[in-house]
């Protein structure tokens, strides 16, 4: 998808248009590479979206755990809840937490790759 980029070959835009409105005459990849204001906007958007996604994944894992701890701290009767032969606490923290965080991990991987693909597509467009 990004194998051949026109980054070097399309230096000159030919044609009759000499508008007052400045159009981007260089590929975005170059803007990013050369740290122009426009390139920084693109890059900042990518970093922001990746950071937001990363924090979302962390929150998805950490907030439920904090919630469980807070619930046990505030309501003592929560601590001794039973599910069948097992205390709920052991079921949650000894067993269920592991498949849950594995799922969140792969969810994150998929979305992080999608963010990168979108960024790459954006650079290819221009």
């Amino acid at each position, binding site marked *: *998808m*990004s*194998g051949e*980029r026109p*980054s070097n070959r399309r230096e000159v835009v030919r044609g009759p248009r000499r508008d007052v409105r400045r159009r981007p005459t260089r590929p975005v*990849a170059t803007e*990013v*590479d*050369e*740290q122009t204001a426009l*390139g*920084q906007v693109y*890059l900042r958007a*990518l*970093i922001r979206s*990746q*950071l937001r*996604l*990363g*924090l979302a*994944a*962390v929150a998805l*894992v*950490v907030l439920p*755990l*904090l919630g469980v*701890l807070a619930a*046990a*701290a505030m309501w003592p009767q929560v*601590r*001794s809840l039973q599910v069948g*032969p*097992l*205390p709920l*606490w*052991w079921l949650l*923290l*000894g*067993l269920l*937490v*592991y*498949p849950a*965080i*594995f799922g*969140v*991990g*792969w969810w*994150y*991987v998929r979305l*992080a*790759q999608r963010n*990168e693909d979108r*960024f*790459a597509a954006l*650079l290819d467009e221009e």
Partner: protein
Amino acid sequence: MKAVSAALAMLAVVVITIGLAVFSTRRARTTADFFVAARAVPPWWNASAISGEYLSAASFLGIAGLVMLGGADALWFPVGYAVGFVLLLALVAAPLRRSGAYTVPDFAEARLASRGARLATSVAVVAIGWLYLVPQLQGAGLALRVLLGTPIWVGGLVVAATVLAVLASGGMRTATLVQGVQYWIKLFAIAVPVVFLIAAWHGAASPDVRALAEAKFLQPTTVSMEATTTLQVEEPTEVVAVGQVDGLASQGPLLLAPGRHAVEAGTTLAFPTGAAVPTPVDSQALSGPRWAFPLEGSAEHSGYRSLALMIALFFGTMGLPHILVRLYTNPDGRAARRTAATVVGLVGLFYLAPTVYGALGRLFTPELMVTGSSDAVVLLLPQRAIGGVGGQLLGALVAAGAAAAFITTATGLTVSVTGVLSQDLMGRFIREPVRAFRLAAVPAVLVPLLLGFVAARLPLASAVSLAFTVAATTIAPLLLLGIWWRRLTAPGAVAGLAVGGVLSLAAIGLATLAPSTSGWPSALLAQPAAWVLPLSVAAAVLVSLLTPDRARPDVWRFMVRLHTPETLEFKRSRPQEQAP
């Protein structure tokens, strides 16, 4: 007999490890090979190697030991160890791989363009590595003593010698091959007996967690005390004592009243069936509902302690130098992410088992709680609960797994510490990098070995959490700010490292030297991550904002490199830094 099979199993692991090292040395030719394995390792194998390196003595033995003593509250340890990888995955893995840095000090130097920041990071890496190595070597000593009856210092010495042999012959490429194999050895070793253990539990008693919580002797049990111990007895207990109890010689039946009893080393106590298991006063062992349910323990402010432990373990994982160096063996950032996500699964799969050992240990090996050797529960439980030849084989299997745990983690940590020592300290005197690497391996192992002889013995998993605390308050802020905040400067990073490292080490030192404090000071000193991490980040941010002129001028280019996929070509931001 049981000692022979366990010894043979451990010996086999040592021989296989050194054998693989020697075998793969022939393939490692260049210096780059020597430091970091060639990058052509598939993600799942890389994930096995990371997991193999990560699952240390603390995971293999220590978690079960803590669960045996502390029950519900101890479950945070394995959860924290696993969740730490989610943070590593979501916030660090891909950008760190894309930075092209071999090690954390490499990252610091590249990101901040500063030798000073590199040196400060190196000091933190060595401190974390040594702190982490101490319990590995101590744990090996405990394992060999329990299984073979050797003096406590032998195990650490054996592991240290094995690690040096592995490093001298192969370096990192070796480690990748070996570590991957060892994850599967460890998983197999700890998981296979679980099925039999649960069957034995159903056969021996009503399978009820509350019965485990009570901790009573299932059968008449004779316990020989190896060290002089003060036992806390909760209910009147009729024992047959041979030796000295409460300063009086005893050669027969003795009624232990509720309260504290000093038992001299060398004394044997025979408990009848159904007697409550007494525990050392300083062991923090719980029983009944206080074991079965969370936050009921005797420690003050246990809510804060759990929270601070979570913070240390969550952020500590991303600061472990021997884990971070493995990200580099991925061909690109995306592979690093997939590797880290696979590790979450592999590590989580492993952590299902220690809890079972810890809980069932209360039924089948309660004497370990009396002698304060609960870290040995994984080693002794299979042969005790299952018995016969099958029990012996399973016992040999877990012994092999334990040996794998000590050796892999110790090897990985030693590689990291050695790399830093040889590049940043000895490299100035010794020109040839491979020779410097080999020479630096000696102090890298020897210092923690000596520290382990003099340092107090903590439960393995607690001791490891100290290394996590330092990692969470030094390396983690450096990586998080370095990757996501472009205004971080070298002085800011050094300030964060200094504040985090000094405060966390001071707190841990005070908590160890003055264990008698109580209330909030005790809780804050014993689990400092919750307040040191914010201070460390604040110091790094504040000093960075005060020194904007020290920011790397081309920081945007570095950010392009960190956050964009390698498939995009940037002539200036990513010059010639492509995977082969």
